[in-house]
């Protein structure tokens, strides 16, 4: 007869020397493991709790300005620096790692309303209410490191004076034109003292302006007549325009899906549109309780950050109706501008209290270099938490955020108001002839009309 019995030799299953790693053997048979789902659920619960324990999003504040911060600009070639302009004409370059001013750009007489950096990161363009556009040389990074104690002052490269006060400025992503917004939309070249081209559609001022990351000739603007206009530089007249019920304060294009943009509106919502089909919003992002002042997309294109008049900064998913995260501090007053850092890990907010604040994009993220095991563990915990985040206990922990009392009260009041309106609408519909009251979705409701 043939007999074989399981016999394991110890040498095969234990390590040879004490310097070696211990040997690990795997058998993926499900029969060896019981109650896998319950174990995963317990791990998801613990992961949610740990997330909350490690959630410390505030990194630091950068103070130096003596008036409210009105605009910020990212340098596409240098990760660590950010430019900010304030209401008294002070433009500064900050080093995010040390949170100190590297260089100051004095010169503007009134508020600085727009800042932007050229494609190669060498030239900073600033515009303000003193009807000037100033071009500055951005100091080279190697010099920045050595001179971080003294704040340098730079001389402008050029100063162009024009007819009206400017409200915003933006540079092409891949070109050498920049556009300013004011009484009309002007297209400038670096070397020319006068705009190369001017667009004027309505008599109202244009408040914000953004170039498309994918198409260098397309830009979107918002005006104080509650419209959003899309211009094409190659055409003589604007391409498309929609008029909404309330004014849009800022627009941001999705860098990964350049046909989509999101508009930050005065009615506390953000509306995401597909630029090719403007009759209906793709998504309405609701969570703020006061006007949304500024919006910026993450370089991954998957989330965006908004700063609002209600003293909070919120981070939304690109397709989510509600915010994933909210940041607030007692000392942070009205937030006027926000930026997502170019490595998608930080969010910078500039607010009324003259400070710029640096926050983590993921509140419980461990910064610095992670060991491969740490990284794998974080990924596993994230995955298991996402798998069970719809269950009540886990959901309660994951969703929980502390809100300041005025915002909590304002949010519940808004909820009561919208519920009451909805109920009244339903009752009106129930008591009228079927079909006489058409239902319109929120995505369409806020748009008054579209003009070609």
């Amino acid at each position, binding site marked *: 007869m043939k*007999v*074989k*019995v399981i016999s394991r030799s110890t040498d095969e299953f234990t390590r040879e020397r004490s310097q070696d790693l*211990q040997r690990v053997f*795997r*058998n993926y048979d499900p029969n060896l493991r*019981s109650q896998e*789902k319950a174990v995963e*659920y317990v791990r998801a619960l613990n992961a949610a709790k740990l997330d909350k324990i490690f959630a410390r999003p505030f990194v630091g504040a950068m103070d130096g300005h003596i008036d409210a911060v009105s605009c910020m600009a990212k340098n596409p070639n240098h990760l660590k620096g950010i430019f900010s302009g304030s209401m008294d004409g002070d433009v500064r370059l900050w080093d995010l790692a040390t949170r100190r001013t590297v260089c100051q750009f004095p010169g503007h007489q009134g508020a600085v309303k727009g800042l932007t950096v050229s494609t190669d990161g060498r030239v900073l363009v600033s515009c303000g209410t003193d009807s000037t556009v100033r071009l500055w040389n951005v100091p080279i990074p190697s010099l920045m490191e050595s001179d971080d104690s003294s704040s340098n002052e730079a001389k402008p490269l050029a100063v162009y004076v024009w007819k009206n006060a400017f409200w915003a400025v933006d540079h092409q992503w891949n070109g050498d034109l920049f556009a300013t917004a004011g009484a009309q939309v002007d297209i400038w070249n670096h070397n020319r003292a006068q705009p190369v081209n001017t667009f004027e559609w309505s008599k109202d001022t244009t408040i914000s302006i953004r170039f498309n990351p994918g198409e260098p000739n397309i830009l979107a603007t918002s005006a104080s007549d509650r419209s959003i206009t899309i211009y094409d530089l190659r055409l003589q007249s604007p391409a498309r325009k929609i008029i909404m019920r309330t004014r849009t304060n800022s627009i941001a294009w999705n860098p990964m899906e350049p046909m989509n943009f999101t508009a930050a509106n005065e009615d506390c919502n953000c509306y995401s549109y597909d630029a090719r089909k403007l009759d209906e919003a793709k998504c309405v992002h609701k969570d703020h309780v006061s006007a949304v002042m500024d919006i910026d997309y993450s370089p991954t294109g998957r989330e965006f950050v908004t700063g609002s008049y209600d003293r909070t900064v919120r981070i939304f998913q690109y397709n989510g109706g509600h915010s994933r995260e909210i940041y607030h501090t007692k000392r942070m007053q009205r937030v006027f501008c926000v930026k997502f850092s170019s490595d998608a890990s930080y969010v910078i907010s500039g607010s009324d209290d003259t400070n710029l604040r640096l926050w983590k994009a993921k509140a419980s993220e461990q910064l610095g270099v992670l060991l491969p095991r740490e990284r794998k563990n974080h990924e596993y915990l994230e995955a298991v938490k996402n798998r069970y985040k719809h269950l009540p206990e886990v959901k309660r922990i994951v969703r929980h955020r502390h809100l300041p009392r005025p915002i909590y009260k304002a949010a519940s009041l808004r909820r009561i108001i919208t519920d009451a309106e909805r109920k009244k609408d339903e009752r009106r519909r129930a*008591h009228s002839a079927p079909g006489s009251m058409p239902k319109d979705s929120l995505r369409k409701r806020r748009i008054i009309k579209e003009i070609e």
Partner: protein
Amino acid sequence: MNNPMFSVQQHENAEEEEIKVNKFLRGEVADLKVVKDKKLKGQLEVREQLYRKSAKAAVKADKWLMPSEGGFLEPEGIEKTWRIRQEAIHTEIDILSKRNQYDIVFPGLGPYTLDYSINGRYFVAAGQKGHLALVDMKKMDIIKEFQVRETVHDVVFLHNQKFFAAAQEKYVYMYNDNGTEVHCLKEHGAASRLQFLHKHFLLTSINIFGQLHFQDITTGKMISNIRTGLGRSDVMEVNRFNNVVAVGHSKAGVSMWKPTSAVPIYTRQCHMGYPVTAIAFHSNGHLMATAGIEREIELWDLRKHEVLQTLPCHANSLDFSQKGMLSAASGSSVQVFEDFSGVYMNHPMAKGYQIKKVLFRPYEDVLAIGHSMGWSSILVTGSGEPNFDSWVANPFETRKQRNEKEVHALLDKLPPETIMLEPTNIGSVKPTRNSGSLSKQERDAEMEAAVEGAKNIAFKKKTKGRSKPSKMAKKKQEAIVRTKKPLLEQQIKEEKDLLSKNKRKRIGEDIRLPKSLQQFAGKPTT
């Protein structure tokens, strides 16, 4: 490529692979046609593809990366496996395996019960006269043996070999691996059987009054104390698939219990009313074997709740191995069944050795027998799982690995509410119910669940005499009534609706009223 034989072979290989992949897929592929939301459907499709990929990778690892192969016994010629004796096997195997066949004799110290630690390396034996011995099976070395000078009914390892619990004459005691008595668990009383639930760290006991105790040994808290009400019982086993405790009774068959409910979650009459002498569960959770006094073993399918097969075999003790072999012991002989069509192996011992317990050793082809003269160990080829997973149970564990494992097990400790008959229900979505289609049973279950939830509400303790026991009891009662009220109201409403629907049908009204006027529709016409 046009060869039909080749394509048939390919087809067969594909089928085999399908079966193997299904082994690693936990459950069936979800039906995505009912999902209307396109975005969700896309996300779920991606998920399903990922699961399939990981199952395929597991199949490959299973095929190529396993270090050991299982044992087997192939008879040659006219030999039959049940005729092969241990002595015959002894001559054919290697030295290390020969060490696993032995008899240890302690005459006069009573029938022995035994337990193996979860990795099969450590072994504790308890003689009824009070002899406790802790043995390291790899080194074949007694770690500690001592006398407690009391009758010991049962012994069980706790989470690792460092602690074990012994059910002694009056109380249950917990011992260290040094032989030190660590705890005396008085609440359990005079227990007759002990079991340990590894994932929940719960020590379970059934005592001579038929009371089940569940104690969490990490905090020491008694989770629940259930009066089975079905009399004294000596048979208690745990289904390792869902961690449900099954108790065998002398008149009431088999009942299954979980710590969070005072009523059994499943009862079943078996063996035609005769007392149940032993129960054993297969590791996949479907199959249960019960043995009765009328010398039959019944194999139950726990999904369909019916008897699959009856084996004519007398059994005082049953155990399933990791590979699905069933060992049945009675008197002084052991029979091992592999596929239930006939006996696989047979081991008769001398008449004086009356067997109390059989237990398969995890990850080895060894069967331990505890009998009236001590304990023995025999080889049953093909019964153990040849490949262990270091993260589940490691027979070659070092001290550091053991400590790390303990910490991780404590972090992943499951709450007692996760014990249920269908463990895959956790995380699943309750199907939306149409109010008319609730049967009485479901309604009762819902009410009971709501009442249990209400009972668990913790009330704030108030100071200055405002939290008197009478007031707290009254508050609790009110909470229970409050949770019951909407369910009862809904029941009454449904009954009323049913009545009015019947009435309307009789009247013959089939005009669809607009929504705003429907509140007037139910009024009876005078």
